[in-house]
């Protein structure tokens, strides 16, 4: 048994060994070069002691290094002996030269995540080059034409999981349009003592292997207490009928992961110092293999100034969710002479990464409790979908499927989740305004009135223009509902400023195989949904609707065509793909050099997928087709569709994939070939 496992932090008491496992060793981390049990660089509390490499010439050595994060010795894949890899500082406009030497027994690589560069410098074995063979040194050389916060990582095997990732900061030629006195990288990641091959095999062999927050009889009884036996029963039956779990939040959890902040475990407590009144820039990077984090600093507002390295109009928030591979830069201004906790809880609340901002080293702030475990709702599943061979479209079912929205173990305000894809306005997280929306329109009321099966009778969800229309009405006034219908060929028409419900009439034929367990029929095009577990939590939560890049389109042309791709998977078999076709069975996506295309991603799964396109920017469109934000990694929530424009201005063969490492490994990957 390689993995120590325990129940969810919520439902079972935490024993001492569990606590050490979750919180890690105070002095954990990479051990090589320092002698065992001596503190590694990243566990040292002074940020001045971090290894930061800057300039234009870099020598990086990939090797294996003994580490100890949990009390158990392990071996990490490291760059210059560190987890994370050294912070690299480049300057916009410089030509950088990076000599990367492989001291592993197998091939390795470095991909510069989010960097626009020539195809042969992108670092994807099989697409950009052959990879870096053992003993070899590969020299990367390219001009840096952007600035901001990025990261770099291996694109070989599972090396990202075992430590091969590091921060990358590019100083702008001209000053950033905001000021700050201090600058810290905050890199989040997930560590497991188990080998990634073992983890992958467990996921393939048993659905929910790492999930210790699955619905239990106790959850059912609590739900029945709260909502009545009938509702609780209907809800349970609905999920069971679909063979899905409303607690399918994260494939891999704190059952095996120890979450790290700058390579420090929660008890290791990475710390950055400030002087009161200073502005501190925090460059958050999610270098995890599989973990989404909800990040906040209790007692302090964060002003988001950049996303994925690109400056945005400043947005003050209390909290943000950072998907795997995303970066967010925030400015904080600690006003008190005290320690502030940087708290990053995993989306399934099975653990957290934690660090501290304080006037002096060695201080600790209060660590908040984990939020309640979120529960997915029908809204997160695209309202209705037909499951493999099952007639789910009947009006008979539709009624209580809709009503099934309020979920077991509901959070306050959870009752609204069933339709807050249509109704939630992030700008108004107050429950009062939510309930106002709930009842605006009697069809909404009927949908909320759970047991009323007849409310939706006769209106199969596939054709529930009624629902969509009313929800739109409740959500925001005056969009053209007709425009939300997605045509079979997959063009997403504009659908009003806030977005709304989009009917998904067509799924590719390839989606009806063993690899796809679910097909959405209604998705939200709204960008202002904070996501499961963050809705109506009383905190101002960042959404994509808040992100407005300072610059506009890279190219003002309207896209000449639309490529619609569905994000598909089957948790039961642990198969993941685009359009139901995994990489090895798929043809490359061909783009013509110079063309402007729109990519529409429709999420046919119950999970968030961070989709990363190499070599080309992804420019997210607002629901009405306007410019929103330029990113390198676009998270598509369950029950959602996201549309973005791509300018095919770089020739070559680019990787395009889900950045959840094990999804990628399962085949959720395509080649985009710009010719």
């Amino acid at each position, binding site marked *: 048994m390689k993995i120590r496992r325990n129940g969810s932090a919520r439902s079972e008491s935490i024993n001492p060994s569990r606590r050490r496992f979750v919180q890690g060793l105070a002095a954990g981390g990479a051990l090589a070069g320092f002698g065992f049990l001596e503190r590694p660089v990243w566990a040292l509390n002074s940020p001045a002691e971090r290894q930061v490499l800057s300039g234009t010439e870099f020598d990086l050595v990939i090797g294996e290094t003994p580490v100890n994060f949990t009390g158990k010795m392990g071996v990490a894949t490291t760059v210059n002996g560190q987890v994370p890899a050294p912070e690299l500082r480049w300057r916009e406009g410089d030509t950088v030269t990076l000599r990367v030497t492989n001291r592993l027994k197998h091939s390795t690589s470095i991909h510069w995540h989010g960097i626009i560069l020539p195809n042969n410098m992108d670092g994807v074995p*099989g697409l950009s080059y052959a*990879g870096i063979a053992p003993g070899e040194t590969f020299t990367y050389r390219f001009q840096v034409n952007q600035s901001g916060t990025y990261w770099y990582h291996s694109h070989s095997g599972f090396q990202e999981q075992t430590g091969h990732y590091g921060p990358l900061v590019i100083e702008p030629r001209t000053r950033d349009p905001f000021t700050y006195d201090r600058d810290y990288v905050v890199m989040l990641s997930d560590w497991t003592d188990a080998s990634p091959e073992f983890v992958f095999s467990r996921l393939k*062999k048993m659905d929910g292997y790492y999930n210790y927050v699955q619905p239990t009889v106790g959850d059912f009884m609590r739900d029945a207490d709260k909502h009545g036996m009938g509702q609780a029963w209907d809800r349970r039956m609905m999920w069971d009928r679909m063979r899905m779990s409303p607690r399918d939040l994260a494939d891999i959890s704190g059952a095996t992961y120890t979450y790290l902040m700058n390579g420090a475990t929660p008890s290791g407590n990475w710390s950055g110092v400030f002087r009161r009144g200073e502005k501190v820039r925090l460059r958050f990077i999610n270098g995890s293999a599989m973990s989404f984090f909800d990040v906040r600093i209790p007692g302090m507002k964060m002003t988001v100034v950049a996303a994925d390295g690109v400056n945005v109009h400043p947005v003050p928030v209390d909290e943000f969710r950072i998907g795997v591979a995303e970066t967010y830069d925030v400015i904080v201004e600690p006003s008190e002479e005290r320690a502030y906790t940087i708290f990053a809880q995993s989306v399934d609340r099975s653990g957290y990464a934690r660090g501290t901002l304080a006037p002096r080293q060695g201080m600790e702030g209060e660590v908040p409790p984990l939020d309640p475990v979120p529960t997915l709702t029908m809204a997160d599943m695209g309202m209705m979908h037909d499951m493999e061979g099952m007639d789910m479209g009947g009006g008979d079912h539709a009624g209580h499927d809709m009503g099934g929205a309020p979920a077991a173990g509901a959070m306050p305000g959870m009752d609204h989740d069933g339709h807050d894809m249509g109704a939630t306005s992030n700008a108004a997280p107050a429950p009062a305004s939510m309930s106002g929306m709930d009842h605006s329109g009697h069809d909404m009321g009927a949908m909320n009135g759970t047991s009323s099966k007849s409310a939706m009778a006769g209106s199969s969800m596939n054709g529930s223009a009624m629902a969509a229309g009313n929800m739109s009405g409740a959500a925001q006034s005056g969009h053209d509902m007709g425009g939300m219908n997605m045509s079979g060929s997959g063009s997403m028409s504009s659908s009003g400023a806030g977005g709304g419900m989009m009917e998904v009439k067509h799924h590719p034929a390839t989606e009806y*195989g063993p690899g796809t367990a679910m097909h959405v029929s209604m998705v939200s095009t709204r960008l202002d949904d904070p996501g499961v577990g963050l809705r109506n939590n009383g905190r101002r939560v960042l959404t994509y609707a808040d992100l407005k890049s300072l610059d506009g389109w890279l190219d003002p042309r309207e896209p000449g065509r639309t490529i619609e791709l569905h994000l598909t998977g089957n948790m039961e*078999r642990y198969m993941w793909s685009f359009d139901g076709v995994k990489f*090895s*069975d798929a043809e490359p996506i061909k783009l013509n050099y110079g063309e402007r295309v729109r990519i529409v991603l429709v999420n046919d799964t119950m999970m968030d997928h961070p989709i990363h396109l190499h070599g080309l920017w992804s420019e997210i469109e607002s629901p009405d087709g306007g410019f929103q934000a330029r990113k390198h990694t676009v998270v598509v929530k369950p029950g959602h569709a996201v549309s973005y424009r791509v300018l095919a201005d770089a020739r070559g063969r680019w990787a395009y994939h889900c950045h959840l490492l094990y999804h990628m490994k399962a085949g959720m990957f395509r080649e985009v070939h710009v010719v």
Partner: protein
Amino acid sequence: MNGIRIEERLMQMKRVATAAVLPVAALAYSPSGFAQDGHPDWPSPVHDNTVLTKVMVDRLERRDASPEDFTYWEAQAWVGGDINKLWLKTEGARLNGKTEDAELEAYYSRAVAAFWDFQVGARHDFSIEDTPARNWLGIGFKGLAPYRFEVDATLYAGTKGRSAARLKAEYDLLLTQRLVLMPEAEFNLYGKADPERGLGSGLTDSAVTLRVRYEFAREFAPYVGVTWENKYGGTADQARAAGAPTHDTQYVVGVRAWW
């Protein structure tokens, strides 16, 4: 098989234990759409054809039965990729150190829908003492039915016009994250009587079992339970004639493991 790293192949070869499963492994490596574009020595950017092996000892239990306690096993194993697998299944009983009953099945299994595998293969009922062996061709579906019932349904065609059917279904009800109640039902039907094996025609026997397992680890869970076995029709008649009970309530204690 271009583009599969040697070490990965070696690892897979190691996992693929017998020559019999090589065709399955080959099936898992269906020709890939990955074009090497003039770089035949480059690896594939993603190796998404993982071949794995899973061995499941679903039941290894002691049963407090009449007239005598016995040991019962049910085990399965598969090797293969996402779509194509080779399955082996065995079940049987041992009494006083002697095998009382044993059967072995081998199937080619193909994922045909999100939750269903189609399986075609053969079953061998071993000859034990004066009980003759029987051979069957088997065809069936195995998977997860709506409402999360784990179902294994197989039709069998034997020699001399024999036919049979077996239906198994079980459900996992989580009492806690580790304590799981697992009801199970099994029914066997035979097309015509087989007196040499004590079988009548039609529904021959059923077993309804309630087990509660505790998952010390996902892979290792001891359990206790109770099973109600019934024999019907001609099968029951023959049991009576032989002085054996036609229905029996048995307490079981055992272990479930997989790797």
